[in-house]
C-alpha cells in the first residue's frame, strides 16, 4: 500500500531522490532486494550528497548477502560520519561475513564504543570472529566485557564456557558453571555439563556426584517437564556420564 503510494508520487516527480530512497527502504522491508537496490542506486545518482542513501544502500546490500558492495557503501557513509555507531556495526558485520575476521573483531570493538545499547548477538559475533582469527583467549575476554556490560547475557556465558573448555581451562570453566548453577532455578542441565567438565578434567569422583545430582533433579521434575524430549536426552547423557565416571 505504501509502495503504491510512493510509486504514484514518483510518477509525478521521477527525479525526487528522497522518494526513491523511501521506496527503496520499503522494498527492503519487504525483502525485495533487487528493487530496493535499484531505487537506492537511483537515489544516489540523483543526489550524491544525500548521504543517508549510502547507509540504507549498505544495509540493503548486506541483507541481500552482497557484503563486498555493502562494505564499499558503508565506507562512503563513514567518511562523512566516522563515529556513527550503527554504521560501524554494519561495517563489522560485513567484514565478518567476508571472513576478514581480525578486522571484523576490531571493527566490532570500535562500534561497541559508540553504541549505547548492544545486543548479546553482537558480542557473540565478535567472539566468533576472534576465534576464527585464532584468538580464542581474546574471544573469552571480549565475551567477559559483554557480560560485564549487559549483565544478563546467557549466550555469552555459555560460549565463554565452551571456549574455556576448548582451551582446557577446566578451573575457569567450572567457575563459570558454578555461576550459572547459582542463578538457575532448574539445575539439571548445568549439573550434567559440570559432570562432563569434571570428567574431562580427570576428576571422575566429583563428576559422578554431579551426574547423580542431575539425575535426582530430573526425577524430581513434574512429569510434564521430566518427559519432555530435551529432558529425556539429558537423562541419557547423565546416565552415560555416570557410567563413564565409574570407568564403565
Amino acid at each position, binding site marked *: 500500500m*505504501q509502495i503504491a503510494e510512493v510509486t504514484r508520487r514518483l510518477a509525478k516527480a521521477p527525479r525526487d531522490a528522497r522518494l526513491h530512497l523511501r521506496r527503496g527502504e520499503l522494498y527492503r*522491508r519487504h525483502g525485495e532486494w533487487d528493487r530496493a537496490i535499484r531505487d537506492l542506486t537511483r537515489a544516489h545518482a540523483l543526489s550524491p550528497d544525500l548521504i543517508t542513501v549510502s547507509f540504507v544502500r549498505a544495509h540493503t546490500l548486506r541483507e541481500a548477502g552482497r557484503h563486498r558492495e555493502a562494505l564499499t557503501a558503508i565506507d562512503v557513509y563513514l567518511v562523512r560520519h566516522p563515529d556513527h555507531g550503527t554504521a560501524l556495526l554494519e561495517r563489522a558485520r560485513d567484514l565478518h561475513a567476508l571472513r576478514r575476521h581480525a578486522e571484523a573483531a576490531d571493527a566490532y570493538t570500535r562500534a561497541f564504543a559508540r553504541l549505547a545499547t548492544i545486543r548479546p548477538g553482537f558480542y557473540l559475533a565478535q567472539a566468533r570472529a576472534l576465534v576464527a582469527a585464532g584468538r580464542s583467549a581474546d574471544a573469552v575476554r571480549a565475551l567477559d566485557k559483554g557480560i560485564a556490560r549487559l549483565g544478563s547475557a546467557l549466550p*555469552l556465558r*555459555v560460549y565463554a564456557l565452551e571456549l574455556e573448555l576448548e582451551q582446557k581451562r577446566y578451573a575457569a570453566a567450572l567457575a563459570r558453571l558454578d555461576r550459572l548453577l547459582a542463578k538457575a*532455578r532448574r539445575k539439571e542441565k548445568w549439573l550434567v555439563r559440570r559432570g562432563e567438565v569434571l570428567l574431562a578434567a580427570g576428576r571422575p569422583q566429583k563428576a559422578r556426584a554431579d551426574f547423580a545430582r542431575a539425575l535426582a533433579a530430573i526425577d524430581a521434575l513434574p512429569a*510434564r517437564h521430566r518427559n519432555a524430549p530435551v529432558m529425556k536426552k539429558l537423562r541419557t547423557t547423565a546416565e552415560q556420564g555416570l557410567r563413564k565416571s565409574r570407568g564403565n
Partner: protein
Amino acid sequence: MRITTVLIPLVFLVAGCSSGTPVVTIVVPPGPDLTVSALVRVGATWKFLDDGTDQGTAWREPDFDDTTWASGQAEFGYGDGDETTLTNFGPDPANKFVTTYFRREFQVDDPAQVVDALLTLLADDGALVYLNGIEVVRDNMPVGAIAFSTLATGAISGTTETTRRVNAIDPVLLRQGRNVLAVEVHQGDITSSDLSFDLDFLISTGAPFVVRGPYLQQVTRTSIIVRWRTLRPSESRVHYGAAADALFLNAGSDALATDHEVLLTDLTADTVYYYAIGTSTGLAAGADDSHNFRTAPAAGSTRSIRVWVIGDSGTANINSQRVADAYRAFAGNERTDVWLMLGDNAYGSGTDAQYQAAVFETYPDFLRTTAVWPTIGNHDAVSADSPTESGPYYDIFTLPRHGETGGIGSGTEAYYSFDYGNIHFICLDSQDTDRAVDGAMLTWLQADLADTMAEFVVAFWHHPPYSKGSHDSDDAGDSGGRLRDMRERALPLLEAAGVDLVLTGHSHSYERTVFLNGHYGTSDTLTPAMILDGGNGREAGDGAYAKNGAAGAVYVVAGNAGQTGGGSLDHPAMSISLNARGSLVLDIGPGRIDGRFLDEGGVVQDTFTILRGE
C-alpha cells in the same frame, strides 16, 4: 494536595508486606486536584471572516475590532458534510480563497494557577494559531513569514483530515481577564475540495496534561511499571493504594521528564491496586475506579488466567475498534490478566504518531488496567532500529532484559520471557534478530525453556510457522525466509521442551492447527505421525486435545485484529482457517487451556481446549 511525611509501619498499609517502620510518604489525594478547565470547547462559537480579503497582521491582536465579522459555531468549513457552519470559498471553485480567519475571546481569572495548557487543533489543510497576538501553533504550514496567499505545506487527506493534533501552549502567555485566540486556516491547494476548522483549549491547575497513557508494563507478583507522556516536562509520581480514594502510597522521581516511567515495588501478589499519575502536588489522571491493575498471582495459584491476544492490530481504524469493542462486550467486567500483541502494532511504519493512533487512542481502557506484552512486527520495524534497540517500538515499551519478570534474562528487549501464575510466556523476535540455532536468541531460548517450572509454556512472535493466509509458510522467500526459519529452527527447540501453544500474526487471518508435533517442513511433508490429534479440539465436538506426555502443541495465526488478507487458507495442519477479523481469548487454569476466536461481531467462531493429562 496535602502531603505529609510520617513514620508508619508499612504493614498497616499493605497487607503482606514485611513489618518495620520505614519512612512512608502519605499522600492525601483530594479529587479536586485533578482540575481541568476548558477555555474553548469543541463546537464553540467563533467570529470568522471568509470574504477573501487580506487582513494583514492586525487581526491577530487582542484589541482588533472584529464586530463586523460573522459569528458561527464550529466545526467550520466546507466539502466534508460534517460542518456546523459552512464557510465561503469564493466565486470560483477552481480558485478558492486561500485563507479564512477566526477569532474567539475567553476569560482567565488567575493565570498564575495554570500549570499547563493544551490546544487540540483540527485544521484542514494548515493553520496558524495566535494567543494574545503571539503565534503558538503552526500546523502544516511552511517556515518563515506567512502571507494571505501562502498555501499550506501540502493538502492533507484520509484520516489526517479528521485527526486532532495536540499542542502544548505556554501558560505564561495567558493574561488575567480577557484573552483572544486568533486562527488563520490556509488551503493547501486552491482547487481543494474541502476545509475544516475546530479546536479546544484546556488548562490544568493540577498537573501537566497527559497526552499518552497511563499504560502498564511488566506486571509481576510484586511490581509493575506505570508509564505516561506529558507534553510539558514534569516530575513523575504515581499515587496508589487499595481504593481509588485511598491512594496512600506513592513512588516516582523528581527528575523532569515528558515520557514518564515509574516502577512500583513491594506489591502483594494477586491484588488489585488503584492509582493516579501526576506530580507530588497534583494529579493528572486516575484516582477513579477505571485506573487500577491486579498484580500477578503467585506460582501455584489455581486461579484461571484470562489472556487477550491481538495480532496485526495497528490499523487505527474502525476495524481494529470493532475487534476491541467485541472483546469489551465479551469480557464485561471480567479482568484481562495478560495482553499480548503479536506485532504490526502500528501501521504503516510503526512511527510514534502511528502508535499514538493505533495503540494509545484505540485501547486506552485496556492500557490503564492490563500490562501489555508486545512483539515486534515488520511494520513496527520500519521505524525501529533493532541493532541499537531504539525507535518508537523500543522507546514506547519497557520490556524485561534481565529476567525481571521471571525466566532467564535475555540481555535485550527484542526477546524476553515472563511468568504469570503457572504460565511461562516466551516472546521471540522473528523480524530483526539472528534466527540461527547457535545465535544469541535461540541459545537463550533453550536455556530459558530448561529453567521454567511452569505448568504451561506459551510462545509468541510475529511470523507464522504455518500459514496459507496473506503469507505462505511454504514459500521460502516469503518475508525474507522468516516463516521458514522460525518453523525449522525455533519449533524443534520449543517442542523438545514441551511447548503447549504458539501464537503468531503476520497473515491477516485466523488459522488454528490440530494437535501437532514434529512438523518442521513445508505443508506437503505433513505426515499422520505428526498429527497427535486431528480432531477439532472441542470438548463438545471431537474432544479436547489431551497432552498426556510432553508432546503436542497448538499453533494459532491471529494476525487479524485490524484487517483480513485472504489467501488460500488451506494449510493441511489447520483445523480451521477463517478470513475474518477478530481476536483470540485464552483462559488458562489448572490443567487446561481454553481458546476462543472472537470475531468482530462478537461471535465465537472457534474454540479449542488442551487438557494436561497428569
